[in-house]
């Protein structure tokens, strides 16, 4: 069987296995879920042995007819863009399982259901990045909402049901706009001779500028909600506030990347003319996101929604890089998606452990943790340094690439975006000072430091942050060909240096 398809269905096999385990045996359930996600990880790593590096186009492709009437296929394949995001997914799922070992205990439903939902979600997440058939992509894009809805609504805290519903309705609305655009594309392909949903074939259609604008918006709004981009972001803080840390990691670390991934894969590649029309406006929105998200992060009192707002700022950077339409911007944005996945995972993991110990999500309830839980404090600090893109950690490379790539085409936008690095220092260092420094706050006296399970879950994330900071070459090497291909499809080239050599 095709390794890519195998990676997609392996988590589902885990779900089948879970069905057989009795509800009460939670330990076996957790171990089986972990084993399943590790096998999936191995399978995804094996793809690297078949993958031809430095080559453009989809690889490990596989296609089976699904609805013959409409020429809808189960068609999958990966290029550099999809590969790095799939690896991000398969690496993060086992970490989430180990890191959030006890987070399903207080749910509305059983622990078993929780892990079945996580594994179903993993299949969808890998599948959505692998889909090369636009209709298949749409179906998975919508289907993903279901497990997330139940994960937030059934296992979170506080007003979890309301938060889950808001997430669902918001996403459904975006999805419907995309569905309309997908149908529109299909109609156009029929009129030009051959009805298809194949993304490569669709990119060769001749679409009038006006029509492109409409279809572009259909996709873009769906992706902007998912990403989330200002002003479509208001579902995120509530969801992050209510979800378990593991769910938040998967939602912000991976699921939201489907939005920014879609902007590259569909908005730019299929509608180059419309991209040029809308790019300046989208850049303005991304700049607002960067600065607005940062200020709101500074103003948050709840630890989880604070992290969520830092992500809104970071997604602003990703979108900025994408629509700067330069090779540095696009490669930087793609790398940013990966790095942000790890960096947010670290923040939510350690933040989640802090909340679990203190039994409070309010920043003001912490204070002075550095003295009594040095390992946890250091972990949180490193996660924070990664969020403010400290050189030497991976997020620096991507943030710099995004900014320099933007500067070559839109200098003013880059200058405004660069102020984000001061604001990032503010929201992180204020948080660090309030939670870790100062005298020990009452209520934190007996806080235990990280245990071995937690250290074990976090270690790979920190290794990834450091390794990709010093040696990002392997990732960049994988992403670069995809970037060149997108640039060629969009018929843009990098600006040339102004002063002579």
């Amino acid at each position, binding site marked *: 069987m095709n390794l890519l398809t195998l990676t997609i269905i392996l988590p589902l096999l885990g779900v089948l296995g879970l069905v057989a385990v009795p509800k009460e045996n939670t330990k076996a359930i957790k171990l089986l879920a972990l084993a399943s996600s590790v096998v999936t990880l191995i399978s995804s790593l094996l793809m690297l042995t078949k993958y031809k590096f430095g080559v453009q186009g989809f690889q490990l492709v596989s296609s089976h007819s699904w609805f013959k009437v409409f020429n809808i296929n189960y068609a999958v394949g990966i290029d550099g863009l999809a590969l790095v995001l799939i690896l991000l997914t398969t690496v993060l799922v086992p970490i989430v399982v180990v890191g959030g070992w006890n987070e399903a205990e207080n749910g509305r439903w059983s622990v078993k259901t929780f892990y079945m939902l996580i594994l179903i979600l993993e299949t969808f997440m890998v599948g959505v990045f692998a889909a090369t058939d636009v209709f298949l992509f749409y179906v998975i894009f919508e289907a993903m909402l279901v497990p997330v809805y139940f994960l937030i609504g059934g296992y979170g805290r506080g007003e979890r049901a309301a938060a889950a519903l808001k997430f669902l*309705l918001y996403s459904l609305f975006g999805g419907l706009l995309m569905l309309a655009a997908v149908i529109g594309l299909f109609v156009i392909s029929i009129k030009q001779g051959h009805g298809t949903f194949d993304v490569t074939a669709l990119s060769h259609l001749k679409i009038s500028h006006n029509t492109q604008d409409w279809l572009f918006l259909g996709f873009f709004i769906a992706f902007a909600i998912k990403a989330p981009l200002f002003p479509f972001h208001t579902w995120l803080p509530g969801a992050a506030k209510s979800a378990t840390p593991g769910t938040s990691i998967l939602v912000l670390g991976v699921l939201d990347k489907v939005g920014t991934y879609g902007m590259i894969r569909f908005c730019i590649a299929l509608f180059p003319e419309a991209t040029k029309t809308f790019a300046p406006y989208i850049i303005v929105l991304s700049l607002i996101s960067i600065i607005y998200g940062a200020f709101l992060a500074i103003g948050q009192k709840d630890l989880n929604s604070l992290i969520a707002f830092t992500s809104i700022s970071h997604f602003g950077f990703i979108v900025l890089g994408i629509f700067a339409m330069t090779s540095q911007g696009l490669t930087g944005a793609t790398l940013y998606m990966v790095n942000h996945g790890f960096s947010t995972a670290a923040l939510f993991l350690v933040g989640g452990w802090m909340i679990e110990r203190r039994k409070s999500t309010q920043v003001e309830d912490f204070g002075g943790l550095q003295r009594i839980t040095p390992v946890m404090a250091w972990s949180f600090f490193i996660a924070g340094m990664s969020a403010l893109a400290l050189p030497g950690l991976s997020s620096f490379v991507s943030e710099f690439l995004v900014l320099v790539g933007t500067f070559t085409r839109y200098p003013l936008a880059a200058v405004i975006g660069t102020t984000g690095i001061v604001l990032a220092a503010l929201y992180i260092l204020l948080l660090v000072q309030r939670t870790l420094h100062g005298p020990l706050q009452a209520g934190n006296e007996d806080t235990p430091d990280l245990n071995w399970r937690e250290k074990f879950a976090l270690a790979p994330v920190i290794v990834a942050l450091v390794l990709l900071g010093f040696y990002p070459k392997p990732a960049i090497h994988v992403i670069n060909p995809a970037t060149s291909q997108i640039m060629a499809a969009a018929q843009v080239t990098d600006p040339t240096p102004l*002063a002579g050599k």
Partner: protein
Amino acid sequence: MRTSSHLVYLIALPLFSSAILLLLGRMADKWGHIFATLISASAFGVGVFEFMAMHSHTGANRAATQKLFEWISVGNLKVDASLLLDQLSICFVLLITGVGTLIHIYSIAYMDHDKDRRRFFAYLNFFIAAMLLLVLGNSYLNLYVGWEGVGLASYLLIGFWNHNQTYAVAAKKAFIANRIGDVGLSLAIMICFTQFGAVSFDGVKAGASHASPAALTAIGAMLLLAAAGKSAQFPLQSWLGDAMAGPTPVSALIHAATMVTAGVYLITRSNFIFDASSTARILVVTVGVITLLFGAIVGTAKDDIKKALAASTMSQIGYMILATGLGPVGYAFAIMHLLTHGFFKAGMFLGAGSVMHGMDDEINMRKYGGLAKLMPITAVTFGLGYLAILGVPPFAGFYSKDKIIETAFNQGGGKGIILGGAALLGAGITAFYMTRVVVLTFAGAKRWKDGSHPHESSVLMWGPMVVLAIGSIASGFLLSAGGALVNWLQPVVNASHAEGGKELMKPLVVSVLALGIVALGAGYAIIKYRTVPEVAPEKVSIFTKIARKDLYQDIFNDAVLVKPGTALTAGLVATDHHVIDGAVRLVGWVIGEVSDVLRKLQNGYVRSYALMMFVGVFIGALILWVVTA
């Protein structure tokens, strides 16, 4: 240019040691400080070895590079992780590892009672590694990694006792001010790439000769902003005084001798930018002159011995920045003053630490007095540093500071008189506040309570002080004899010794003028502080009041940045909840009402989905109509 395979050890050794000490944790408590000190000494050894290697080569082969690996390569942007050791960087390598090792030794005793001494040494080693990367990086982007690395080290060390809220806030303030500067460095790099398609020193240098004046001025201004953040220059100076919250050896190493001088390095390294833009040079000298006077004035009113020295550091770096804006020959004098200052100011900070150590961590000079008899070695070594900073011949500052004043006057015209005059005035104020520090601390009657027992520190502490004092005596002469440093740096900054040539002011005249004004300042301080009240008098001149308030820097920043920022944050939080999310909730409410109506037509809990499907089909039909129209 040679290639070398040893440069990486300079950085790898202390970085490795730092990681070991942090990862082993308490297991390394027993030997961590010794290990870190040995590592720092061995980095100094590598530095000396490399210096010898440079000496054995001539011409272009003096400088050496080492490519480590390809770091970032996207489109035109190709950046290697690569190191460059040339005549400029070796000066810093020897200063950082040399003074660094002395301060490691000193800290063994100074931090003896702290249960986190190992962690302190881990941070010190990390600082050494980052600072070496800053001066060895072979491109602006490599430099940037070290640049933020030292910022992190500085943050960690200022906040070393961060369970004290004030210290934690001071650390954060330093990081934020530095980050504002870092925006400058980032933008400079972006402009360089956009203009020249390169971020390496060579690439930018090659491009600079074709660049437009506007681009060069923009790059220069952004580099200056970066330098202002790191080197506590106007208008980003406010963090340095608070940074004295860190343990005193840190103040000596990071906030006097090395990290805060990184801005001078950056401008000197970018000489090809500043040489080509007279506007950028004007900005540089303006910042330098303002800061050298600003720091000196603040220094006159401080009772905290460390804050007085910090104000002095700011002022002395102002001299260096001024020098870098004075054209090619100025760079060499800036570096010379940087090196001599590294000796005498680090020495005086260690002296201050020694005094604090003997006085139960008392920092208020009004509670010192008459310590010379009880701490003779500290008093003498501090005194030698004092003579050096005043510029009394033949001590180190005489050679370096007078050259800057002379070069400033030699700019000619009104500019020369303003710059030279300000530098001369600064020297007088320096003499006043430094004399004040010495008189308050070491001379006069004792003002401390009988409970404290001032005593001379151990040899681990006074040993490094003696070595630095020797540097305060001899370094100026050695660096300037026969134009040694100027000639040595010539390949980097393109300055010939003769170029200071338009001698509008004879060196002798400058020296006599400077000595005269120094004598005035010092004499005034001696007369004024014959008796010292233990509590700072309330009835003082308006100038003293302003100086005590640091020229209102914090009040200004608070009113212009902090208060509006806080208000903006609160406003945006409210906007997000009421306006943006409010609009979303309104839409949700409308849909809810509509679905209530529709619900009556249907049975079943999937009503929301159904409504959505309905809306979806409608929009789908609409789109079909649009694309087929």
